[in-house]
């Protein structure tokens, strides 16, 4: 469905993609905990990874999933529960969370991948609602209270993550690794096939590509990375709650990606930063936040469809 929209020229697909963008990102990321409140920065990083993983699907494969919160949330719950119940080391717990999200993604994917457009979105939404229901009902998830107060533990059994600074750099390292995986995926032959499918699926089929398998793999990678983000987020806040499994979260990730610029490598991260900042710094204005978010949506859709990074990229290309 995205293929009909001519405005989507993924900036990253061109060799002229912005390498200085990455440099700025790395520098800002290193300095961030000294500039802003570290927990806020960690939240942004986790959601940025989540949005980037989502973008791998929407921006590069043309699949709009409306159930991505299921991966984020489920992984968070699994990670904390494995720490709490079995005392798993942090790294292993994160791995388990990620694997669970990947398996969940496999299940969603196998069933949903044969549909496209709104139907694909709706099937993923349906499955995500089922996951939400399970999380609400299962005895160990604590209902709307969620899992609370789980200790962050020690990295490799040595470095305590209880301090915000240590935790921050751990999250940052994971974010960079995840971002790198996405980057590699986009620029690999696999990524090119994905884009070919997005642009013209019948042609990709006629060229002999097993389209469903490519889509499925993209879906599973995206789900796994979303799970990774969710595991980290749960660890940062030492809690897993229904918010992260709710469909509002699935909607929020669409907003982040759209606002930052879908189909651009940096866009989702910028979007995640803006949306989180909006929620964070306007928290005391009550329902005006909803009004303001709504206005941002409207303005974005009407005037800046390429998103911030997309528009900037277009500006740069036009000026040089």
């Amino acid at each position, binding site marked *: 469905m995205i293929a009909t929209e001519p405005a989507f020229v993924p900036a990253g697909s061109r060799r002229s993609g912005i390498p200085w963008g990455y440099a700025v990102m790395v520098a800002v990321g290193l300095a961030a905990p000294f500039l802003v*409140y570290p*927990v*806020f920065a960690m*939240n942004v990083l986790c959601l940025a990874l989540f949005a980037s993983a989502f973008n791998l699907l929407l921006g590069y494969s043309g699949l709009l999933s409306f159930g991505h919160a299921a991966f984020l949330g489920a992984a968070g719950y699994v990670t904390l529960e494995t720490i709490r119940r079995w005392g798993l080391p942090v790294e292993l717990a994160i791995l388990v969370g990620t694997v669970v999200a990947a398996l969940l993604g496999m299940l969603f994917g196998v069933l949903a991948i044969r549909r496209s457009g709104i139907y694909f979105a709706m099937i993923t939404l349906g499955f995500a609602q089922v996951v939400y229901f399970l999380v*609400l009902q299962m005895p160990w998830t*604590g*209902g*709307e*209270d*969620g899992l*609370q*107060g789980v200790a962050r533990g020690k990295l490799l059994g040595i470095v305590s993550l209880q301090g*915000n600074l240590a935790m921050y750099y751990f999250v940052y390292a994971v974010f960079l690794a995840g971002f790198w995986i996405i980057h590699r995926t986009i620029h690999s032959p696999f990524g090119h096939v994905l884009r070919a499918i997005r642009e013209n699926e019948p042609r990709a089929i006629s060229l002999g590509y097993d389209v469903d398998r490519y889509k499925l793999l993209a879906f599973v990678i995206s789900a796994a990375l979303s799970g990774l983000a969710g595991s980290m987020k749960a660890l940062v*806040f*030492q*809690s897993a*709650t*229904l*918010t*992260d499994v709710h469909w509002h979260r699935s909607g929020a990730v669409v907003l982040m990606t759209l606002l930052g610029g879908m189909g651009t490598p940096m866009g989702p991260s910028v979007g995640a930063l803006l949306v989180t900042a909006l*929620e964070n710094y306007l*928290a*005391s*204005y*009550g*329902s005006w*936040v*909803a009004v303001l978010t709504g206005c941002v949506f409207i303005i974005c859709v009407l005037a800046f469809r390429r998103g911030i990074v997309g528009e900037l990229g277009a500006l740069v290309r036009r000026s040089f």
Partner: protein
Amino acid sequence: MRTTFRNIAFGGVLILAGAAAAVAQVSDDVVKIGVLTDMTGAYSDLAGPGSIIAAQMAAEDFGGKVLGKPIVIVSADHQNKADVASSVARKWFDEEHVDAIADLVSSSTALAVMPVAAEKKRITLLSGPGSSAIERDKCTAYNVHYTYNTYSMAAGTGRAVVQRGGKSWFFITADYVFGKSLEADTSKVVIASGGKILGEVKAPFPTTDFSSYLLQAQSSGAKIIGLANAGADTINAIKQANEFGITPKQSLAGLLVFLSDVHSLGLPTAKGMYLTTAFYWDRNEESRKWSKRFFERHKKMPTMVQAGVYSELMHYFRAIQAAGTDNSDKVMAKMRETPINDFFTKNGHIGADGLNRHEMYLAQVKTPAESKYPWDYYKILKTIPAAEAFEPPDPSCPQVKK
């Protein structure tokens, strides 16, 4: 010469600062209260902006200063989300020198913030949430659960209704932790008072259409339908019970009904319902006086949660004054040893588990004919003494064993 003068001046400042520190120890030279509440969601009418106004009134009435240091009130919206609540609390404690967080309506947000506060040795003053887990297995040493808990609501309404002949019960329960805890506490009281439970149904939260559940309640033949839910769910259930002709034959018992709910339901629908409350604005001269001041600012009469925020903050400020410091351990000790007697309640005592045990009031909603002026909604039927309204400290709270 000049340097010497500067040194002397500097030394003087140091001495002054030291003296001030000896007289009164207030961390960061400010007593900062964070009101963390639901500004937009299901509980924003019973807490929300009104809680913030109550907190500001408390700060002003105390003179704006405690131990000579300014009192500052900040506020934020937790949207009823546990993760938002805990991250705002973290930021307030880590970055903004907040000494205590007040209100925390909705149990899930309270349970999320309590361990964060305890870890950083800051105080939580809960007025809005009801879960009795707060003083049982989830209790902390730095928490005060001030206004009510699910048990006190259950004990008041449940016992009174059974005594008036409502012996068989059916529950419509919000399929959420707080709903289940409300149901469990009420069942306990109903059975202990000689009633019996005929059945229950767990409705997803939130639900708008209760007709199906009401029919199930009807066919159970129970005399009393207990509504173990809150906010909009309670309102819709009561409305539809009227519509489906259930209320004359069977009676509703709202287990968590606030003044704001009755106000938006209107007396024609809500009349005759029993409920338990920690505070009613029109109860006596003192409560009327305060409530009218509150009304001037909020244009609505206070709910028990909002009045509780004011009262708990006054108690907190007085404890700081008496302890001569805002050190959390000392303030907590002072708050526990001082009884609470004000417009809000009488004979309040904060236990080792953090629960404020005080009088509760059994009320019945007036009929439109009985209501003489705006907000004239409740008849107070009975004062429930603290010992009856609340359970003794539960051994599952680690603070209690000590």
